[in-house]
């Protein structure tokens, strides 16, 4: 894996009949978690899709720059809200998907190591339907890590999980993604307050950076500073960013 990059997105996005966002300037710091919060429909996931080079309904006018050079999508790993595990393939085959799609040899040692780290070694030959929601999301995280990319884009990956599994997944993801530049799109102020090195709230008026709570991430779920920050973030979101 190449060194964790910094990344900057500056520009505007237009939908066929409206402006999605204008004069946006978002910076991701190297090897840090940036959490992007905001109401639905404001364009958070669209920014993520622009960075990943995925199709969107919006047209982006601006620049996405990084010390990775011009081909940013090649250095991106992506994890969505749905686990996107192929139902016909075993967990092991799902982890090997990227290599298969590129026609590369599968690094079996790395695959096994990742299965061990997410605690799915014993379930590696099972189909996704036989796994719980948390186990499936751990498999999706392992598949994301199999890609070994310096820039990781997470689009509300834990939002469908129950509270306990979600906090477990947050800890696991934070530990496994250490040393990578991460952009986490989330609706959950608590998640941002636990994990972020930087918190950015997006609204129709643009981006506002909020100071994260003191202390190293991931912060404890009952950390008073984290809970206070979660409350402040919630109030801010209710006021419309």
């Amino acid at each position, binding site marked *: 894996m190449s060194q964790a990059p910094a990344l900057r997105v500056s520009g505007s996005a237009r939908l066929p009949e409206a402006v999605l966002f204008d004069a946006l300037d978002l910076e991701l710091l190297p090897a840090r978690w940036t959490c992007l919060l905001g109401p639905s429909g404001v364009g958070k996931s669209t920014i993520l*899709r622009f960075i*990943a*080079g*995925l199709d969107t309904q919006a047209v982006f006018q601006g620049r996405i720059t990084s010390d990775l050079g011009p081909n940013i*999508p*090649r250095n*991106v*790993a*992506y994890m*969505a809200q*749905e686990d*996107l595990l*192929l*139902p*016909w*393939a075993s967990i092991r085959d799902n982890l090997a*998907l*990227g290599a*298969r*799609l*590129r*026609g590369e040899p599968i690094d079996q040692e790395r695959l096994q190591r990742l299965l061990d780290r997410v605690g799915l070694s014993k379930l590696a030959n099972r*189909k996704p*339907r036989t796994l719980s929601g948390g186990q499936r999301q751990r498999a999706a995280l392992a598949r994301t890590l199999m*890609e070994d990319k310096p820039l990781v884009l997470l689009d509300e990956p834990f939002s469908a999980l129950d509270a306990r599994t979600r906090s477990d997944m947050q800890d696991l993801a934070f530990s496994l993604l250490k040393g990578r530049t991460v952009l986490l799109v989330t609706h959950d102020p608590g998640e941002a307050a636990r994990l972020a090195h930087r918190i950015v709230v997006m609204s129709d008026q643009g981006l506002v950076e909020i100071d994260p709570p003191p202390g190293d991430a991931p912060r404890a779920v009952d950390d008073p500073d984290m809970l206070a920050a979660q409350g402040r973030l919630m109030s801010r979101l209710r006021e419309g960013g």
Partner: protein
Amino acid sequence: MRLVAGFSAAVFALALWQATVMLTGVPRFILPGPALVAETWWTSRALIAGHAVVTATEILLGLLIGAGLGIAVALLLASSRGARVFLQPILVFSQTLPVFALAPILTLWLGYGLGSKVAMAVLIVFFPVASAFLDGLLRTPRGYLDLARTMQARPLAVLWHIRIPAALPALASGLRLSAVYAPIGAVIGEWVGASEGLGYLMLLANGRSKTDLMFAALFTLSILSIALFYAMKAATEPWSRQARDDA
């Protein structure tokens, strides 16, 4: 439970049929009773079996070639937007032609043997398979394709590892439908011109007022079709289960 219900319904229908024949005294060359049909089926079993083998061969060959062509064309159309623009209207137009009307032409071109009957079955099987599979290939969930794109996937690898497996439930539907249609194609081909097969036997029996033999041949064709449908259903069940698991 379903088996018992189906069996009871069949017994009831046969009893009703037999009672109608007995009570109305309708001549046997107009409507033979099920008891007579069963008797004829048993006494003519060697004759019927010989013709059934011919029809079954036509159906299976038609199914194999028609499904193969349907799958190949669906893959071609799914892989190339140009091919879709060019070929899809032709395919749709071809379905506006009544396939039954083509039977005499196929007999003229391919003769009275196996070829024209297999060609009829192929024509009937091809479209449901091609259409269902193409639909499946073009409806790959967007999330899978996004994931593949972030993985810098090669298009052929996406087709092989994602789009085809995701389209298998749709292909299973097309194949099950084609298993029902294939016998129709073969029998129509036999009606237009043949010297063997269950369709030929039905025409022959009808011409000689051997209505009981005609019903026995029809009954055999029906068993053949049901067996084919359930065999196809069993063969494609893992693909259909995949769709249910995914839902």
